[in-house]
């Protein structure tokens, strides 16, 4: 594989992200560890980074770029193969929140810093609900991402 740079233009700004692209394009996007939705998600994050002060009309802050970077790195590290596309939303305090609402599960996690993640999980099927802050040990967060992935893919296969 050779590294190459791809430039995404969004109005008058350029957000450069460097992705490994193989000569066989299909194998890149067929790679379960690098799903095609990452490209779309990065463009979404680029859009959110452009938000100005008071973007929500209630005094919200612009998104902290370093926190956004940490959020991307953390999700890359713990995402299981086949993870469904997350919804990515900004919070009023200038951070990013990843959300999934499918398969009877509500999972949200907000990256507060490189070593603080606030997560909320509800599984209506199993009657499980928790909210906790993670620092360096992300095993439980990774586990619920796997549960979500299996639940959603199981539903897709059954449909």
């Amino acid at each position, binding site marked *: 594989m050779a*590294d190459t740079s791809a430039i995404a233009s969004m109005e008058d*700004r350029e*957000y*450069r*992200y*460097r*992705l*490994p692209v193989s000569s066989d394009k299909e194998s890149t996007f067929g790679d379960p*560890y*690098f799903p095609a939705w*990452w490209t779309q998600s*990065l463009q979404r*994050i*680029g859009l959110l*980074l452009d938000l100005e002060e008071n973007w929500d009309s209630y005094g919200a802050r612009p998104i902290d*770029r*370093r926190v*956004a*970077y*940490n959020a*991307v*790195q*953390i999700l*890359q*590290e*713990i*995402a*299981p193969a086949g993870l469904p596309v997350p919804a990515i939303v900004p919070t009023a305090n200038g951070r990013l929140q990843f959300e999934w609402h499918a398969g009877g599960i509500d999972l949200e996690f907000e990256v507060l*810093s*490189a*070593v603080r993640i606030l997560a909320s999980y509800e599984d209506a099927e199993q009657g499980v609900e928790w909210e906790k802050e993670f*620092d*360096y*040990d*992300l*095993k*439980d*967060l*990774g*586990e619920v991402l796997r549960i979500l992935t299996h639940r959603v893919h199981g539903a897709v296969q059954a449909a």
Partner: protein
Amino acid sequence: MWQHYGGKYPHVQQHPPVDPAIERLGVRRPRSRRPNIELVVETPFPRIWFLTDDEKELLQIQQDRFIRNWRKLSASDAYPRYDDHIRRAFVADLRDFQDFLDTNGIGRLTPNQCEITYVNYIEPANGFQTHAHIGKVFSIWQQDFADDSRYEVENATFSVRYLIRSDSGDFVGRVHASVQPVYRGTDDQTAFQLNLVARGKPFSPDLDGIMQFVDEGRERIVRLFADITRPEMHRTWGRKNQ
């Protein structure tokens, strides 16, 4: 900052920043095995090197990292000892850096990760002549495989990661060991480069907590170096040190 460091570190260089490296548990794909995604929106803060006059010691400072290095620039250079010099100098420079931040109202250093790295060049000795002799140097390389005449080994690399846990079993960080065959730049000498990195969270978010981890990391590195290299090499190094 240049005015602050100019006396002790008269030489300054600018380099691109290095990405943060945080040891986390539950990671499915370490940085080395995932796509390198960078978000570059504006000119990033650089990493500034402040070097001593002989350029053997340096500080590296960027927006989110403080590093102190000791470099061997010639074969005759001897590394300063950890207890006598390295630790003391690091603590002094870190305190000085925090004072600089306080004096200039920049902010408070809140450490979330610490790291100590040893880079070793293992030169030929005790039957180790070429990179094919990796089994004569490292104990975790299966010597029988290396000696199997069906396989003409040219060279090999490997890396291993070990978890660091607290006394109560909580995750603290990792020790990374990596070996690769190299030819030393100064004289093209065959060697193995053994990198040992201990990285993890400070035991508390202050200088004491930082040094607790650094001391612990250094002890683990020293022990691992002894365990990962063969006793025959130790005897050779012991003879050289006499």
